[in-house]
């Protein structure tokens, strides 16, 4: 089944996409009809206008999923594998000419020559202004000045057409002609061509990395592929061209020697280490500028004009030759261009960090597989499964070891024969330490359960301690004013700011995270219970006094139920905040939990896994909230109706 799904991903994706489009269109039609039906009896601003409307939720979800499918680039290659392959060949051509385009003003505003000229002249000028005269002897100062003026002269010389040698001009022309040839070849229709067996045997979509087959599988693609090889040769040729006329060469040699001499030249002040250092640093800067231009890579603009136009024409012709491919590229490769790098063709843009929905689901099922031996789970823990939990472990948590010390009698001693007969106190100790087998109970297990467990335990303590305190703060001036500063001082601090401290104190095990979450839940529960308790209507309190209720009874039977809606809202908020904090806390430390998975996935850039964890967190958060909403509606139906 899974294999079939994997092999037919394209069809599965197509069906899902069609269903999504259908759901999208249907929900819009249905929504408009509903709106028309109701607009007559609901004026703008009527709160009833926002009630219900699940069809718009379907619309929103289908838009979201369609956008995901669209931008995660699975669609294009699933349904246009040939186009992707041809675009890969185009990418090869682009890659081949990139050394030439990068030195021309084609994808940048300035040509490389212009950039070099402007930047180096500017740097020379600033260097000249801060010449450390005291670090050089008088004669050396004048020599340094000559070196710098030579460098400037060299730059100017290279940028002047008169100094370009005939040989260089010929080489440039050769490259121009080569590009014109490619332009012509691009303009002609591709010949009949048969794909090689090797090309046809390339793995198809989604089954391997690299995902776009490199070898051409169509005539058009083959043409691009051949031309790319030619262009690569031309580029190599271009890279070998040097603009070094004889006068420039002699100037370079002369300056080179001067720099070498200056670097060595001992000065009168060479005892002063500071001055020596200043001289060395300065000469290094001068040499650096010189070396940047002595390879003859600056060309006059007029000389390169021909190449600029021939390459531009070629690129234009390439766009023409793509024909219908351009539409496919714009519409179905929304992420951006397909780029050929050294070993593979990849699509740039969101394709890199937005995995295909199908891959995300596949990753999720791999993660959810409880069979740890066969690659299921993550880092030795299942996602959500069950295990046998020894009862003794639970008992060990409930009975502190210290309690056994308080029992009468003493622990057993070693006897004469060197044996050890444990007495009842030893037995109690092993009970408290969880060493007595008392059977096992089935228990949930896995990353999700670990995360849930932390939240639930923290919520339990947060509610059982926070609600009573909050209620007392709501009815007692002492409690309110005594605890208010304590809680209000720690509450506004973001939980993550506490995390390093708490994790240091309690360790990276569960207790640290649980305490951190407890702090979050506790503050929210105290505040909501307090708000609820102070919100009791005076007449209700007076009525219960007149009915003969005692203070404790009023607290239990009037103030507490009256505060219940606020408390439930507090639970809802704190579950959400705890969940958010937990994931962040697990990212800081720990070996299990959903946040832990994401943290590891981040370090290895496993985007499928990152998305899976994000979706798990989102869905669990949503489930919590829906459960709380349901519980509120079910158990406190009087909310807001008092």
């Amino acid at each position, binding site marked *: 089944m899974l294999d079939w799904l994997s092999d037919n991903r394209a069809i599965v994706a197509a069906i899902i996409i069609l269903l999504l489009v259908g759901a999208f269109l249907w929900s819009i039609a249905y929504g408009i009809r509903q709106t028309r039906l109701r607009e007559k009896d609901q004026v703008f601003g009527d709160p009833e206008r926002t009630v219900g409307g699940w069809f718009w939720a379907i619309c929103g979800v289908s838009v979201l999923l369609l956008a995901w499918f669209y931008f995660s680039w699975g669609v294009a290659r699933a349904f246009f594998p040939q186009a992707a392959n041809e675009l890969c060949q185009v990418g090869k051509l682009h890659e081949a000419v990139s050394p030439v385009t990068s030195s021309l003003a084609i994808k940048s505003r300035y040509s490389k020559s212009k950039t070099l000229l402007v930047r180096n002249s500017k740097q020379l000028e600033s260097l000249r202004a801060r010449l450390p005269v005291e670090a050089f002897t008088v004669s050396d100062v004048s020599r340094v000045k000559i070196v710098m003026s030579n460098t400037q002269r060299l730059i100017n010389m290279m940028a002047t057409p008169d100094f370009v040698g005939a040989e260089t001009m010929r080489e440039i022309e050769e490259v121009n002609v080569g590009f014109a040839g490619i332009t012509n070849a691009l303009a002609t229709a591709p010949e009949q061509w048969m794909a090689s067996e090797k090309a046809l045997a390339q793995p198809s979509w989604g089954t391997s990395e690299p995902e776009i087959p490199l070898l051409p599988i169509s005539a058009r693609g083959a043409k691009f592929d051949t031309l790319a090889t030619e262009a690569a040769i031309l580029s190599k040729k271009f890279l070998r061209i040097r603009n070094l006329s004889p006068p420039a060469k002699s100037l370079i040699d002369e300056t080179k020697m001067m720099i070498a001499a200056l670097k060595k030249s001992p000065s009168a002040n060479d005892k002063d280490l500071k001055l020596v250092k200043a001289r060395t640093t300065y000469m290094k800067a001068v040499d650096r500028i010189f070396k940047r231009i002595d390879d003859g890579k600056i060309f006059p603009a007029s000389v390169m004009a021909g190449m600029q136009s021939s390459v531009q024409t070629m690129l234009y012709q390439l766009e023409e030759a793509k024909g219908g491919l351009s539409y496919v590229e714009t519409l179905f490769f929304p992420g951006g261009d397909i780029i050929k790098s050294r070993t593979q063709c990849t699509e740039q843009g969101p394709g890199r960090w937005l995995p295909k929905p199908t891959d995300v689901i596949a990753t999720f099922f791999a993660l959810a597989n409880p069979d740890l031996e066969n690659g299921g789970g993550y880092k030795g823990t299942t996602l959500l499964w069950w295990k046998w939990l020894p009862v003794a472990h639970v008992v060990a948590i409930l009975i502190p070891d210290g309690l056994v010390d308080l029992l009468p009698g003493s622990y057993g001693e070693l006897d004469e024969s060197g044996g050890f007969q444990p007495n009842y106190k030893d037995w109690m100790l092993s009970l408290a330490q969880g060493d007595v087998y008392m059977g096992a109970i089935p228990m949930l297990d896995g990353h999700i359960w670990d995360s849930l467990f932390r939240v639930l335990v923290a919520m339990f303590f947060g509610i059982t301690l926070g609600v009573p305190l909050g209620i007392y703060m709501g009815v007692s001036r002492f409690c309110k004013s005594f605890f208010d500063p304590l809680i209000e001082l720690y509450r506004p601090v973001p939980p993550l700011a506490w995390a390093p401290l708490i994790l240091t104190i309690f360790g990276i095990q569960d207790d640290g995270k649980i305490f951190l979450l407890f702090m979050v839940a506790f503050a929210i529960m105290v505040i909501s219970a307090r708000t609820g308790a102070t919100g009791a209507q005076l007449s209700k309190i*007076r009525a219960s006094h007149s*009915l003969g209720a005692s203070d404790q009874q009023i607290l239990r039977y009037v103030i507490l139920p009256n505060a219940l809606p606020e408390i439930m809202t507090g639970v809802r908020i704190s579950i959400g905040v705890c969940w958010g904090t937990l994931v962040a806390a697990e990212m800081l430390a720990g070996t299990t939990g959903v946040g832990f998975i994401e943290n590891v996935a981040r370090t290895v850039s496993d985007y499928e896994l990152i998305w899976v964890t994000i979706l798990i967190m989102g869905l669990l958060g949503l489930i919590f909230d829906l459960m709380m909403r349901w519980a509120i509606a079910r158990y406190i139906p*009087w909310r807001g109706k008092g």
Partner: protein
Amino acid sequence: MADLTCKDLCMTFTNQQSGAKVEALSDINFTLKKGELLSVLGPSGCGKTTLLNMIAGFITPTNGSILLGDRLIEGPGADRGMVFQQGALFEWLTVAKNVDFGLRMGGASEAKSRERVEKWLATVGLQGFADTPTYQLSGGMQQRVALARCLINDPEVILMDEPLGALDALTREKMQSLVLELWKKTGKTIVIITHSVEEALLLGERLFVMAPRPGRIHKEYQLPFAEWGLGRSLRDIKLEKEFSAVREEILTMIWNMEEEIMGGA
């Protein structure tokens, strides 16, 4: 059951911040015999609610004393039942649980008191509503629950703070009859605070018209209309010449008081 006596009752409120003192009530003296129906009327700010709260024990008078029989009132208690303007029901409980709240707080079990709850619900005209959540009831029905909740406790005095003020005219009239009916049936001492002159006349065997600044009893009436109302339609009584004469007299009196306040302010 015993008489309710107020002796030299004074109440002065002190503003916490400014220390300014307001004399809300001064020298209130009256004795209410067991089973009497008293209505208290007066312009706003004359201290009628303060008086009621003192009798209920929610606030302590600065001077003077309130006695129920020979017992000094020092705090709220189940012997003085209270009915508020808007029910003050516990919306998280059903009608039955609201009604037997006092009994349960006294330690009675729910099953034991169920019979009494049914009886009182029948008396106030709410048969079959025992298990309805109170937030689903209309204003008039909520007030009936509040009456039943108060009566089931068998208090010696029933204090009503504008109990029918939030109801519509029709419901109000029905409730007025109900109050009279309950008064006759139970023979309780009842104090009703109201700002409606007609209601005060209809529901007052005795009537205090109070005056403000400081709050005091301005005039006292003994009225026959409550007795009449036990057997006749309240609307008929309102048409009687005698009724309208007293009504006009009181209205003029209150009108003048208001004028005085406005003029003095």
